[in-house]
């Protein structure tokens, strides 16, 4: 307290000193006079600082909320998912590599390998198919089309997000599956059908994020490139796409994330048979399709139920893996 008073006195001295030192007198300061300088006001945090605290606090609260959310969901899934290994004594290695899935029959029949392979395959294939299309649309919207044309295209693409996955599932069931059956034979259910359905489902996500990425490339890059005599395509390929690569990769992760987590639509066209997929048109099952179709038929706390939570946990870990992988690629691309 004493020190503070002392400081204030000092400050008063400083102000007085400053007033005396002026070579050209400041009109306003002269009017106030050296003794009237409001030290209290000068030493208090300014209005701007208070705003800053307020803003930072508010946004930090929001992020804290999300962190709590994330931690609680992850913790929740981990607790349930690990119960398979801690309570039911399933061998984790067997869980990952065995292809015998019948948790109702006991702890030796909890092998998730077919679903892991299928989930990976479906996600990867749909991202591979969708990305060129998404980049083409995004380039068309940002580099080729008129403002109005791109607006219409964006509108239609965004509309696709609003179609419920059930509807996609049934479109897949009535159009894609028979189509594959007629061309490749078999029943039509399988990875290929799921890939084609997911391709349409992840397209809007990847496209709109890619558009954002391309729009974020400063215009003077393009102008500089064109001024050097580069063709439109050279500019796009050598400059625009290179600059936007990290963000395009993020767009792809989000698309893959959606494909990974999609359940209802995939479940209808994948065939839902827990078998190691031998080819692209044999019925198989993904982690999510099993999760969705089995959840309602199991009892909380029993092995079949815990095994499903383990699938959810696996999904989480695999998403993590994907994320790191793409980040790594992104970092390399930046160099």
């Amino acid at each position, binding site marked *: 307290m004493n020190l503070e008073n002392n400081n204030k006195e000092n400050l008063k001295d400083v102000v007085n000193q400053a007033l005396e030192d002026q070579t050209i007198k400041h009109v306003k300061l002269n009017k106030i006079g050296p003794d009237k300088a409001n030290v209290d006001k000068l030493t208090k945090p300014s209005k701007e600082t208070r705003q800053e605290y307020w803003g930072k606090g508010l946004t930090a609260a929001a992020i804290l909320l999300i962190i709590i959310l994330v931690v609680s969901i992850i913790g929740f899934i981990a607790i349930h998912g690990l119960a398979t290994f801690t309570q039911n004594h399933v061998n984790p290695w067997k869980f990952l590599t065995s292809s015998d899935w019948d948790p109702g029959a006991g702890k030796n029949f909890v092998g998730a390998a077919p679903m892991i392979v299928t989930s990976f395959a479906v996600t990867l294939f749909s991202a591979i198919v969708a990305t060129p299309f998404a980049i083409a649309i995004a380039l068309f919207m940002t580099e080729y089309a008129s403002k109005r044309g791109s607006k219409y295209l964006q509108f239609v693409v965004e509309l696709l997000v609003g179609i419920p996955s059930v509807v996609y599932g049934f479109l897949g*069931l009535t159009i894609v599956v028979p189509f594959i059956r007629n061309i490749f034979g078999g029943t039509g259910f399988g990875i290929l059908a799921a890939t084609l359905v997911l391709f349409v489902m992840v397209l809007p996500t990847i496209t709109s994020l890619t558009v954002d990425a391309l729009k974020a490339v400063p215009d003077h890059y393009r102008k500089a490139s064109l001024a050097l005599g580069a063709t439109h395509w050279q500019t796009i390929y050598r400059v625009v796409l290179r600059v936007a690569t990290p963000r395009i990769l993020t767009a792809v992760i989000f698309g893959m994330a959606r494909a990974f987590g999609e359940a209802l639509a995939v479940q209808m066209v994948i065939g839902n048979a827990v078998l190691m997929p031998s080819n692209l048109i044999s019925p198989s099952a993904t982690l999510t399709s099993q999760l969705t179709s089995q959840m309602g038929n199991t009892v909380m706390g029993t092995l079949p139920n815990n095994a499903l939570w383990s699938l959810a946990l696996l999904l989480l870990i695999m998403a993590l893996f994907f994320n790191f992988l793409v980040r790594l690629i992104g970092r390399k691309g930046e160099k």
Partner: protein
Amino acid sequence: MRRLNSKKISFLFIAFFLITTFTTACSNSSANKVTVMGSSAMQVLAEQAGNDFHKDHPDSNIIVQGGGSGTGLSQVQAGAVEIGTSDVFAENQKGIDASKLKDYKIAVVGIIPIVNKGTGVKDLSTKQLADIFTGKITNWKQVGGKNLPITVINRSKGSGTRSTFEGLILGKQKPMKAQEQDSNGTVRKIVSSTPGTISYISAPYAKDSNIQKLSLNGIKPNEQNITTNKWQLWSYEHAYVKGKPNKMTKEFLNYLLSKKVQNNLIPQLGYISINAMKVTRDSNNQVINN
């Protein structure tokens, strides 16, 4: 405008927390609330019955949810819902202590094997059906149909329909690994459009001219045959209650078992009234003539 922004945000935060606390406080107080959860087959029935019941009891609040038999049983056991509905006996569901639950059998539902129209098969023996689902028979010509590979669509593991089917047809044999579908509607769609498929669905969903219903050993799956157990593929629709039901739950259960529901609503939906059954069956599939 700009100044409003932060105030707006904080206002929303506060409003949200107020709503949350308030609703948490008052949601426990509704004594007339009866939540029915579980088997999707029972959902339609309970929902319609609940709406009719509400007309006579305006203060009642019947909430009906699906979620599957397993969910229904585990939630009623946990005390989260008043009535848990199920297609399977609680005794047969792992993780459920059946002695704590009281069973009300509401209705009976037939289970009917269906095939795609192009197979050329309308009748199978029980043995043939079992051999198809265990993978011993793989072509329709082995059972007198066309030369067409058989595609088996099984139902989800643990679902009431599948437990009943496997218990009655396969016995101890292990089914082959096959495609699995959860819902009656999806199975019906797949079977009607995919050549060579076989599956089984609940009777109310089988009223469809795009699929071929099978008869077993020459017996047709009609009401007459089910009530006498000549058609063995049927199961009960159970409503389980934990402990002593409260007044409204009791009244609603009585309503479900009343003549009004049993003689009108249940047959309309394609189920069979519990009163029409001439036999009873216990959880070990032992059948007793009444």
